[in-house]
C-alpha cells in the first residue's frame, strides 16, 4: 500500500472515531425465559432500544404511568428514547420481569 493511501485511511478512521459517539445507537435487549438482558441499559436521548423476544409468549416493556411497548412472541419491538433520566420498566403480563433504562441527555 502506498503511503498516501495509508494516510487517507487513518484520516478516515479518525473521522469515524470522532463521529461515532454523536450518532444514535440501537441497543438490543434480549428477552429469554422471562429475563430482560442486559437488565440495565445505559443509553442517551435519540438511541433506540430494540427488545428481541425469544419466548413463545407475549411480553411488554411498561413504565408505570408512562409508555408501553408490546413485544409479540418470537418478534422484536423498539422504542426511540426521547427523555433523559432513569426509568424502571416491567412486563405488565408478568410483573416479575424487570428492567431499567438510564438515559443520558
Amino acid at each position, binding site marked *: 500500500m502506498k503511503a498516501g493511501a495509508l494516510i487517507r485511511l487513518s484520516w478516515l478512521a479518525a473521522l469515524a472515531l470522532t463521529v461515532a459517539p454523536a450518532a444514535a445507537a440501537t441497543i438490543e435487549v434480549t428477552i429469554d*425465559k*422471562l429475563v430482560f438482558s442486559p437488565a440495565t441499559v445505559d443509553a442517551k436521548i435519540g438511541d433506540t432500544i430494540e427488545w428481541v423476544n425469544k419466548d413463545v*409468549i407475549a411480553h411488554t416493556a411498561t413504565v408505570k404511568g408512562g409508555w408501553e411497548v408490546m413485544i409479540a412472541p418470537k418478534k422484536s419491538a423498539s422504542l426511540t428514547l426521547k427523555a433523559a433520566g432513569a426509568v424502571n420498566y416491567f412486563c405488565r*403480563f*408478568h*410483573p*416479575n*420481569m424487570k428492567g431499567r433504562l438510564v438515559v443520558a441527555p
Partner: protein
Amino acid sequence: MFTRYTTGLAALLFVSAAPFAQAADKPTDPQIAHIAYTAGVLDVEAAKLAIKTSKNKEVVAFAKDMERDHEAVNKQALDLVKKLKVKPEDNATSQALSKAAEEERAKLAKLKGAAFDKAYIENEVAYHKQVNGALETLLIPSASNAELKSLLETGLKIFQGHEQHAEHVAGMLK
C-alpha cells in the same frame, strides 16, 4: 357477607381438595407432563368462562392473557412430549385437579357481576399459587428429563408472573 361466604368456601375447597398433597411421592415424567398440561387446560377453561361472563375490562383482559399464555405453553409441552416420544399419562393428581376445577367452575357459573369478578380473580391467585407450589416442590424436582425440567422451570416463571398479575387485578377490584 355473601362474598365473604364464597371466599371462605373457595378456601375450604382448595384445602379439602389439595390435589397435590395426595400425589404419589414421585410422579414419573409421563405423569408430570400430564399434570402440567392439565393444569394449563383448566386455567384456559376458567379464562373462557371469565371472558364470556365478566363485564369488567381489567378482568376480561387478564383472562385473555391467561388463555393466550397457557395455550402457548401447552403447545410447547405438546411439541416436547412428541419430540421425546413420551405419552402423557393420566393420574390421580390430574384427576383431583380436574375435579376441583370443575367444582370451582360450577360455583363461578352461578355468580354475576362484581361477585363473579372477585371470585374468579381470587381463584386465579389461589390456583396459580397452588400450581406454582407443586411445580417448585414436586414436579420440577421429580422430572428426570432435562428438557422437560427446563420447560417446567420456564413455566414456573410464567405462572409466578401470572400470580403477581392476578394479585394486582385483585387489588384493583377492592
